[in-house]
């Protein structure tokens, strides 16, 4: 398992580092929200899922898309705005999607996909399926009323959904304590009477265990569960740079997270040769994906008018 998890983590980390490297070239003409430092959250949760399960995420979605098994080539092409992108070049970094692996899409409006996961769980429940839906969102999303509405309905109907709050303590430049009460997110959710757990360690293995336990219970029909996972964003909110000088957070706060970096730690736990093989394979895959993106064609002009409606009709 360690090798597989490391591969996932390393692949996401390096992919995003490459995105940051490429970004100043203006080849990626759209905002990117990097998960560098937080990859373990998506990786740890996705490791607990089975085929047929589904996940719904956010604009900070490269990690979840890849952890769910989305094509790296098509993601990179999407960032470049190419026809071969997972959204045909029409969605960009904020709207990754891969229904073929159960990733039903990312949205740039905070909180909006939370009820979609619940609706997917409702569909599973109406169909008598034992598949599970996962909703991943940030600490900021908890402030949107739709989170509480979604939680309420999921609990009332005992739906097979796992809520995962990726708490990185900031929404853009605004710290958690400026936006939310002193009680923890988990404490507030507990009041709704569902099992919750908070993982503050940054340990991907602990998260995998917790996710497996939670997903198994949800799959058994025990109703929704909630996980809060602490993490830290290493880059600026949007874009390829660091922003320690901006003044809204202290570089020192990041130090424990750097020291604790799950990518490095898991890598170190592997035999050197195994690790080197994984790294080499991933590097080759990323280089190929960038190449794929660069070589791919732009969408044809007609693509502008495609995909508005299901049929060919023009409506407005």
């Amino acid at each position: 398992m360690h090798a597989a998890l490391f591969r996932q983590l390393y692949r996401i980390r390096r992919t995003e580092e490459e995105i940051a490297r490429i970004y100043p070239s203006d080849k990626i003409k759209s905002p990117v929200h990097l998960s560098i430092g937080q990859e373990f959250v998506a990786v740890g949760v996705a490791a607990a899922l089975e085929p047929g399960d589904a996940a719904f995420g956010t604009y900070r979605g490269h990690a979840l898309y890849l952890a769910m098994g989305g094509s790296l080539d098509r993601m990179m092409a999407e960032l470049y705005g190419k026809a071969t992108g997972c959204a045909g070049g029409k969605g960009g970094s904020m709207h990754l999607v891969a229904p073929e692996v159960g990733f039903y899409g990312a949205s740039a409006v905070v909180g909006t996909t939370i009820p979609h996961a619940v609706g997917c769980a409702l569909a599973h429940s109406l169909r008598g399926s034992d598949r599970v839906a996962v909703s991943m969102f940030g600490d900021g999303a908890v402030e949107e009323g739709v989170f509480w509405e979604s939680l309420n309905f999921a609990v009332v109907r005992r739906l097979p959904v796992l809520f995962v709050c990726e708490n990185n303590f900031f929404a853009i430049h605004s710290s958690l304590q400026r936006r939310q009460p002193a009680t923890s997110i988990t404490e507030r959710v507990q009041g709704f009477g569902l099992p919750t757990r908070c993982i503050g360690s940054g340990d991907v293995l602990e998260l995998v265990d917790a996710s497996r336990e939670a997903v198994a219970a949800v799959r058994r029909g025990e109703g929704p569960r909630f996980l809060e996972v602490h993490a830290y964003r290493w880059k600026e909110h949007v874009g390829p740079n660091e922003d320690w000088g901006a003044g809204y957070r202290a570089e020192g706060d990041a130090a424990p997270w750097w020291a604790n970096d799950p990518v490095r730690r898991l890598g170190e736990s592997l035999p050197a040769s195994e690790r080197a093989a994984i790294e080499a394979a991933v590097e080759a895959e990323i280089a190929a994906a960038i190449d794929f993106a660069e070589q791919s064609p732009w969408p044809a002009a007609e693509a502008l008018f495609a995909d508005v409606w299901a049929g060919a009709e023009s409506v407005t």
Partner: protein
Amino acid sequence: MSAERRLTYSQAIHEALAQEMARDPAVFVMGQGVDDFKGCYGTTRDLARDFPGRCFDTPLSEEGMTGVAIGAAMVGMRPVHTHIRMDFVLLAVNQLLNIAAKARYMYGGAVSVPLVVRGVIGRSWGQGAQHSQACYPIFMHTPGIKVVAPTTPYDAKGLMIQAIRDDDPVLFVEHRMLHFQRGHVPEESFAVPFGRARVLAEGHHLTLVAISHMAVEAMRAAALLAAQGISAEVIDPVTLAPLDLDTIVASARRTGHLLVVDHDWTFAGAAAEVIAGVVERLGAEAGAVRMQRMGLAPVTCPTAPNLERLFYPNPQSIAAAAFSLVGGGGSWTPEWMDAPEIVEFKGPF
């Protein structure tokens, strides 16, 4: 024989829902009170009994429940989400415009949202500021969501079936004063295609394009006008997006006069679109048609009965406007006609 089968608009919607639920297990109905004894004006009555688990009540969470319906639709279900008042859909605009209307496009065709949202609109018994709005222009304006507003029981059934089968999100607009109107409805399942206006009455002096319950009022106005020797063609657009401009333009070109009567404010609304669309389509010939809009007074809906009467277009005011548009000389005050469906309505709310 089938021509004699008459149902109310409410029964027609009920029949459409029941037939589609029987046909396709992916179809389900959700919304506040859909399974209660009133059954949303009877439109959902007994569906919870006849289709266990597939017609259910929801918490009071319009934004969240709309998102839930969207999520279910994304994975292949066909939800019909019912709102007993369109005004409450204003809580769900974000999910409908930012997600439902955009999912297919922003995901490059990978995701569909086959969702029907039913919104009940319109006057009745002093509903006032927040319980009477039409709101459809909001949805007409944004690409990716269709808007239909049937007037007859026949169209209500056929468009509901079409809306459920359609792979795009559809806003289904029902006027409360139409629910108990009766008309011919075949028993068998049938779909009415979107984008076709109906000519409710033929005429040659002027074209009245009238939306939703205003089509009923316009038919009454046409009767008043006929008594003055003015022959009005009455067109019900039936679907607002897509809009059947062809039928409207052909009629307007023929009559030379176009009065658009909306059950909504005119400013930046559906009636503005009809006029602008006709003008563009006619191009250099636009001068051959006199055009005008008519709709709600440009104010919030009041509850005082005397003000409410002034707030809405009515057969009298429609006929008077039409009369002056066609250049009927002198001053004519058409007689007041009480609409029985309005006078008789005192609930259920």
